[in-house]
């Protein structure tokens, strides 16, 4: 009885193998090329990324994973293009089964970039600077690649009352740390001035004037903010 049970299990496993292999059989004749396509700096999805291989194509809008099926095994060239990114081309050797090719697209430009607008907000780490890009119609630019941008700025104490104000004591000058906020829709590029860089007399010096220059591959853009809250407590 024991022997026949072991025998039965072996036969059952072989049977299961047959069922499973039958499910895969048709897929095995071709190759599948899959992987991710993303912005090389931010790792975020690239809107309208068009992936072409051996007469087949697919477009990605909000997701990074792609898949092209039924590709004959052999040498092929994988081509990827997307608005505002450099074209990507890579010769690949497709084998039967799954072939993983991850693609990182490099940004070419921020479309129709005419200038920047900055907004500041006191956060836990320091003064956060939102950098918004605008186009020739004066509208905010939403879809754009990530770039290795740099920013310099100077922060002054704001003196005076109401609209009658002027630049006072210089609090700091120099490069400002930038970071990428993937949760944002309009202002993914942000800067931060840590609180420890802002030495103030908290009783008298509540607001500041910030002047910044953003260096981009498309030129330098300036803007300023005249109502920078100089401490996290200011309401």
């Amino acid at each position: 009885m024991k022997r026949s049970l072991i025998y039965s299990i072996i036969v059952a496993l072989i049977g299961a193998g047959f069922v499973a292999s039958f499910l895969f059989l048709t897929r095995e004749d071709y190759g599948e090329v899959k992987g991710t396509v993303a912005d090389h700096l931010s790792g975020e999805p690239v809107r309208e990324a068009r992936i072409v291989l051996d007469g087949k194509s697919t477009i990605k809008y909000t997701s990074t994973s792609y898949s092209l099926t039924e590709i004959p095994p052999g040498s092929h060239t994988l081509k990827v293009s997307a608005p505002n990114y450099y074209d990507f081309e890579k010769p690949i050797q497709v084998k039967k089964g799954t072939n993983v090719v991850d693609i990182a697209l490099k940004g070419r430009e921020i479309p129709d970039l005419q200038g920047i607008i900055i907004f500041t907000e006191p956060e836990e780490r320091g003064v956060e600077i939102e950098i918004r890009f605008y186009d020739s119609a004066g509208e905010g630019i939403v879809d754009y690649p990530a770039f290795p941008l740099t920013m310099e700025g100077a922060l002054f104490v704001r003196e005076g009352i109401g609209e009658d104000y002027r630049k006072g004591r210089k609090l700091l000058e120099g490069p400002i740390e930038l970071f990428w906020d993937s949760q944002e829709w309009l202002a993914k590029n942000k800067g931060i001035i840590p609180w420890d860089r802002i030495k103030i007399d908290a009783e008298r010096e509540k607001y500041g004037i910030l002047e910044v220059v953003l260096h981009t591959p498309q030129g330098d853009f300036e803007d300023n903010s005249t109502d920078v809250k100089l401490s996290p407590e200011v309401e």
Partner: protein
Amino acid sequence: MKKSSLFFTLILALLLGLLVSRGLAQAPPIREQLVYSLSVFDGKTYTKGFAPRGEDTIYLIANENNAVSIRYTLVYFWPITARYMAGFKTLNEEVEGTLELLRDGKVIRSLEKEDNVVFYPEGYFAENSKMYLHEEAHAFLQKYEYATKEYYARIDEYYEKTREYREAFEEFLESIGERRKAGEELSRTQVEAQMPKQPSPPEGVRFYTTPVAKDYILNLPQGTYQTRLRARDGTIVQDSQKNLVAFVRRRGGTIGYEITPGNRWTMKESSNDPSKTIYASGKNTLYLRPFLQDEYNDLYYKKLLDPQNVGTSERWIWVHTTPIKNALLDLLSKGKLLERIERAPYYVKQIPGPELGYEILEYKEEEFPERSPSFEGHKLEVSSVSGRGKYDFRLEKGEGEVMDGSEREILFVRKENTNLLHIISIFPLIVGVVVFIQRKRRAS
């Protein structure tokens, strides 16, 4: 090997195989997916839907215009309805290209997008609609836009007349007051006769035309095809390959009835086969709506309505298409005409208060201003036909001309002495108790 061992082995193999395949078919998370967005003719109107990647076949009624577009959207599985849902509000990107139609692996037609509208002659929520293409599409949209513009002009006029009416009414009240003060005696009838007439609001636009859309129009003879999208750069778009089945009705032009019972008006039933008897019980009112009907394959038709539906290819279903409006319903007993019932509109009035009920009233525009009828039909009162026995009804068009296939037999049964059935059901229990007592006695 013993027979039982072999059986055990086979069962185990099947179970393990199923486990492996189930692992492959696990519900995926939200995914960006290429889908076919559909606006298909279902025999009476246009139904919107989509075919996700998992559905490899699209079903259409042959020789009718059907609009198709190919889009990227977010698709997710909704366990409550066990269906894939599309998030068109979040992502809805149309893919440009040429839709290729293939038969036996050869491209037989390459389709470009065409202008189209769906025209609803009796309003958006009515039962019938028609698709128009090209210049006709624009003409029908213009017709609707013109009618809407005219309606708004009439509305402005109505507001102006209402304002004038209010002013005139106030003046009228003042003058009546002054005349009464002056000693003039005026009866209610006299006052009402001189009262300014309140303007009535203009009638809204009854028909509706959708905005002009650009889609691939599939109007195909009966058959099986394949379809795929060729992008502008000449590549085939991944996941755009689908099978396409254009099917026709098996039988058509016969008459079916939609039956609305008065005591549960939302639970409609139907009578599609003249050879089958309709059973009615108790005191009730039936509202009968005759339709021309077509018979379609169950699987094909259900998949047409929604590619994710399941159906049975061996079954056939009747689909009510065009309502028959200008006919009389004859009620007969043993060939003798008892009643000739006209089609009339009805309004379902909710009863206010804790009763949570409703009553069905004949719709009269003056009684229900600014409301539309809930339904139309031929009212057949069961109580009016003595409550028991066999009757026949049929449709009569024109001068005594009976419409073929409209005859039905209706059998009224009374719900009587139903308590007797409860007593009968207790009988085996009584027998059991008697047997139990007898055995107990014998044992003691």
